[in-house]
């Protein structure tokens, strides 16, 4: 219960942050050349000034900026994100449609990066300054410096074009219209390359942090005690060291949630996945500012949600945190 109230307080503290973001971006978008109505008129193939005036009144764009902002925030409270002129649907509906692929992509990329970062970090720390460590650290550095979109393109060349093992893009194969388990497998095969691409840089970061944190924990007194008790090395690592060494990794998930969401913009574009990131890109190109603002709101919410979950996880891994509050 204590854990929940602690994380809940952190959650409440993020509401002003969210408000700040929304007001900031809303005002920023006022500076953009052209508004929703301009975009609509362009979509319709032009129109006269009277129609534009009529439309502006209809969408509440004819009042002063502070009033528009107040209206927008009030509608947000009721989860109404406005109307997308480009998609001809409420922004909330458009975003909700695009959310599942992004969530799936982020989860699988995160799991991949976390798991292999952990394993390779442990291997590197156990052979510190010997060849496994050098090899893993070097590869990690190269991964860190690799632009994700470029890695994605090269993966397409190798695995989709030459070897033809995996699909080059899309979320699922529409032509076969499979159901049940086959559909799951189909989507999974479409997500392999995007997940690797998005997870690559995080793998590099996680393995570096895991290595450092393992080395630190391995020097602590309780590890010496465990060794003195006669426990074998595997047991010491899995039962004693790992849980403590995991703490910085969990913190990092929360810190990197935003970066990962940003990275999915590029990765979804490379693999033409119909996700939130690609929607963000499309709404910039099509000047669909309502949708863009909605994406800003939803992505900030996502980051806050991930941080809430990591807070809970953290308290679960380290009971001292819950006890202190």
């Amino acid at each position, binding site marked *: 219960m204590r854990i929940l109230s602690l994380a809940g307080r952190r959650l409440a503290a*993020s509401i002003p942050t969210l408000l700040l973001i929304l007001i900031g*971006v809303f005002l920023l978008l006022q500076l953009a050349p052209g508004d929703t109505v301009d975009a609509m008129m362009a979509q319709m193939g032009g129109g006269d000034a009277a129609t534009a005036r009529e439309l502006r009144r209809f969408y509440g764009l004819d009042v002063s900026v502070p009033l528009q902002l107040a209206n927008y925030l009030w509608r947000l409270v009721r989860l109404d994100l406005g109307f997308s002129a480009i998609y001809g649907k409420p922004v909330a509906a458009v975003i909700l449609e695009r959310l599942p692929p992004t969530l799936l992509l982020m989860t699988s990329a995160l799991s991949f990066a976390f798991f292999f970062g952990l394993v390779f970090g442990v291997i590197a720390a156990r052979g510190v300054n010997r060849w496994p460590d050098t090899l893993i650290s070097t590869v990690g550095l190269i991964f*860190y410096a690799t632009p994700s979109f470029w890695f994605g*393109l*090269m993966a397409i*060349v190798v695995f989709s074009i030459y070897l033809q093992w995996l699909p080059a893009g899309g979320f699922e194969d529409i032509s076969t219209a499979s159901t049940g388990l086959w559909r799951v497998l189909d989507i999974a095969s479409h997500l392999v390359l995007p997940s690797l691409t998005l997870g690559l840089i995080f793998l590099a970061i996680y393995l570096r942090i895991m290595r450092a944190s393992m080395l630190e924990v391995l020097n602590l007194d309780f590890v010496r005690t465990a060794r003195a008790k006669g426990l074998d090395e595997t047991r010491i690592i899995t039962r004693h060291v790992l849980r403590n060494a995991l703490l910085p990794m969990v913190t990092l998930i929360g810190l990197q949630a935003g970066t990962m969401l*940003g990275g999915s913009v590029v990765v979804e574009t490379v693999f033409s996945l119909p996700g939130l990131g690609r929607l963000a*890109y499309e709404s910039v190109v099509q000047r669909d500012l309502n949708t863009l603002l909605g994406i800003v709101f939803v992505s900030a919410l996502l980051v806050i949600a991930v941080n809430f979950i990591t807070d809970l996880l953290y308290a679960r891994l380290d009971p001292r945190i819950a006890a202190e509050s």
Partner: protein
Amino acid sequence: MGAIRRYFRSPAAVLGLVLLLIVIGMALSAGYFYPRDPLALAGRPLIWPFANPRFLLGTDNSGRDIAAQIFHGARISLLIGGVATLIAVSIGVMVGALAGYYGGWIDNVLMRITEAFQTLPNFVLLLVLVAVFGSTLTTVTIAVGIVSWPAPARLTRAEFLSLRSREFVQAGRTLGMRDTQLILREILPNALPPVIVYAGVVMAVAILLESALAFLRLSDANVASWGNLIGLGRDVLRVQWYVSAIPGVAILITVLGVSLVGQGLNDALNPRLKQR
């Protein structure tokens, strides 16, 4: 002096310096080796690398020399990376210094803003900035700088928090120094080294951010940029994959060089941390 010797004792740091010097050399010599406009048509489109001695790295979809674009692209990447880092570190140091030195409500307000910037995914904010201000070289550089300042700000703030109650600062205060003097002349020189070392990370990320933006064709299309070329090569990826592959290697080498140099500096300046 000890720091310099320690730097050159690390093979990774030396390799990073070599890579970075190669890229800087490319940027400086671009005008000498490729005096013509790198975006001008040079020959037949899609010549493979090493197939024609005139175009060592081949030509792209519209017949522009890839090698020329790589050399001139080094200028753009270093320029955008360098200037954006300067902007990010300047804003970060200013915000961090004020927050850390004064504390109280100033700290509260500034840290709320920093948090807001960190909660919003930086690439999404970058998209918003580009959507609003357009994508010329100047606006993209400033935008990349604006999304990158929170981390240096937090670092500077932490340094200021630990330094502001030290004896030498108290001595300065007793001598009647004003706040600006204390911040700029006493604390800042001591707080700056870790921030400058961290600038290596900021620059690496800035180069990656710009290249991603250019790949999406949301950066300046009128300059030879590696990201632009990768985006262009995507159209012919199926067969002429080298158009995308070559500039990617250039980005990788640059970012690797910058991060290795940053890490080497860090280890050389904080030898105690190296032990781990």
